[in-house]
């Protein structure tokens, strides 16, 4: 996804419907698609989303292959926080408040500064939680909001067709 599309998404309208989503888990697939199409967030404010998106982009960076940003992991995390990970909301709000005491805008920092800051908070609950959620967002099925275009699955050679015949790998060929 190009940068202007991402910026459009982050600038999208603020969301409603968190309660609806919570009530309808795990039928959030359709909701995830809608939210992305609208660039809407259910839990985060747009500035919060920009900060978390920037952290996720360092946890799983864009290299010669897509990273968390292209995989739209921020939408996965946003939905997670009103569904299966609702108990982690405080970890995020507290973590973001702490982050604000360290930098005016994490997203606006140069990459080297971002990495240095994250190294300093690696042991916190906040960072560990964002790390785990970023990775889940890379490798959970796309209908949960991340893994856009199966970007994560492609990178680790995972075929989700759920129906295989042996041989499966390089060593069990007849």
């Amino acid at each position, binding site marked *: 996804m190009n940068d202007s599309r991402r910026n459009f998404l982050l600038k999208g309208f603020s969301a409603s419907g968190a309660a609806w989503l919570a009530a309808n*888990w795990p039928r959030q697939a359709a909701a995830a698609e809608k939210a992305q199409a609208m660039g809407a967030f259910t839990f985060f404010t747009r500035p919060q989303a920009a900060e978390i998106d920037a952290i996720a982009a360092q946890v799983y960076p864009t*290299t010669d292959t897509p990273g968390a940003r292209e995989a739209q992991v921020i939408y996965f995390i946003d939905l997670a926080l009103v569904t299966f990970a609702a108990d982690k909301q405080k970890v995020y709000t507290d973590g973001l408040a702490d982050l604000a005491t360290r930098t005016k805008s994490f997203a606006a920092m140069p990459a080297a500064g971002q990495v240095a800051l994250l190294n300093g908070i690696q042991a916190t609950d906040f960072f560990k939680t964002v790390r785990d959620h970023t990775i889940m967002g890379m490798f959970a099925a796309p209908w949960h909001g991340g893994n856009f275009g199966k970007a994560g699955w492609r*990178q*680790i*050679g*995972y075929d989700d067709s759920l129906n295989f015949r042996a041989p499966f790998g*390089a*060593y*069990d060929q007849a």
Partner: protein
Amino acid sequence: MKKYNPAEDVDFVVIGSGAAGAVMAKQLAVAGFSVVVMEQGPWGAYGHEQDYNKDELSNRFPAEDDMLLSDPRRQTNTFRRNANEKAGPGHHSYGCVVGGGTVTYGASSWRHLPWEFNEASRFGTIAGTGVADWPVSYDEIEPYYSQAEWEIGISGPNIKTPLIAPMSRPYPLKPLPVKSSGALLMKAADKLKLTVTPNVAAIITEPYNGRAGCINCGACSGYGCQVKARSSSAVALLPIAVATGNCEIRAFSYVREITVDASGRATGVTYFEKKNNNREVFQKAKCVVLSANGTETPRLLLLSRSNRFKDGLANSSGLVGKFLMSGNGGGASGLFPDPLNEYKGCVTGAAVLSYVPNDTKARGFYGGGRMTARGQMSPIQYGLAGPHGAPSWGADYKKALIEQANRRMTLVNFISQLPVETNMVDLDPEAKDAWGLPAMRITSTSHENDFKAMQFFIDRSVDILHAAGATQVWADKVSDSRGGAHSRGTARMGNDPRVSVVNKYHRAHDVPNLFVVDGSSFVTGGRNHPTMTISALAYRCADHLVKAARTGNITI
């Protein structure tokens, strides 16, 4: 499905619907007896298995009614290493759904070898342990292994070796694919002169008894099977029980007590209807069969205290909950040059059998184990665990994650564990479960011998991975068990009521119409692959019970 009124005095109440309970229910219902099966877990996708969830994220965070395993935050348990410690929060979990652990298990289905029933007389006892002979011999149980294998649907190799128990009938189905990990294991075995065979599994490989063969989807252990290829109790046994018109399954029904009358006979069970505001209901029964697993079975006996049975039901020996063996493992992992794609297919394709027998003199410890080749990791699981020898996030994490993807193989070992009386399940004096009942407390430290065994198998795993051509190998640290789905030994069988809880037909020594059959009946633990033996014991128990009940006297 037949419905019984709780006030009706049914012939049998069976507590638990897993590997043992479903066999009991099916055999008793087919013989014409009225049976009510109590299952504390939900229905799962019983009868509509095509709906089983294959989504890794929602499988990891299921809604309450979609859970297939117990939740240690609700089925609360605590753990401590020894009686001097205060127990802290435990993570013990087990299959908790109609069909029990067989709905989600890896499905390895090895028989015990003949000498695993009389290790004490064959190899001698060991100080500090309760190693004893079983009151039942392999020859007595062999016909029931065959019956279980053919009725349930077991696939496996038909190879004659002293490392596999002798069989009166071959396996009904050809084995599953050995996968790349199995092929590598076979390559190493050639070099190291080890015996390797395809795995024996309760997964059918071609159509059988109206069910479809495995499609190797890979979302296997921990998931329900959407094509009914895994021969779980819920697809292989319970539908037959229900079809008789004699058997009712009650899901969401959590038994809190087996009740007794003044003469000491069981009268039925009191349970919570979880879907009815936990209303308490009493189901009357002529006979109670307890098959709630190696940890919940002793807990329920201990919860069923009464004036007559002050230390818990069927506990005059004091051994209810004692001699817990919850299963030891450990192994090693390696990376190979090309993709194995272990995420496809079942969990285990092949096993090393050479170290199953006891060889105390050569190895310096008592016991043995079965080594299994694996490597299956689903995408989220792999990402969270991370690549070997790399940071846990950032560009180097990502690079290594991609490089190592699908190239990992792991040897997971199933190792003997000695029965030690101080390893036990009892009631936590403080912690309660979500229904306000005393939580299960597990106390366990393996015998020193077992630590040597674990180290031995870790070392052999490293050797095998090198011989198979791994470019990098790393070993697990020795790690003692803390509970788990393979729990055994906690209501042991025996002829002497002073040192055992049930007799050789699983009748409680103290309660003439209470039968206890599941992993808790084990006297010694085998090689930590218990399910096939649990099923066979249940077939044997049911056979006895049907014959006895037909003569009008189940107390013999």
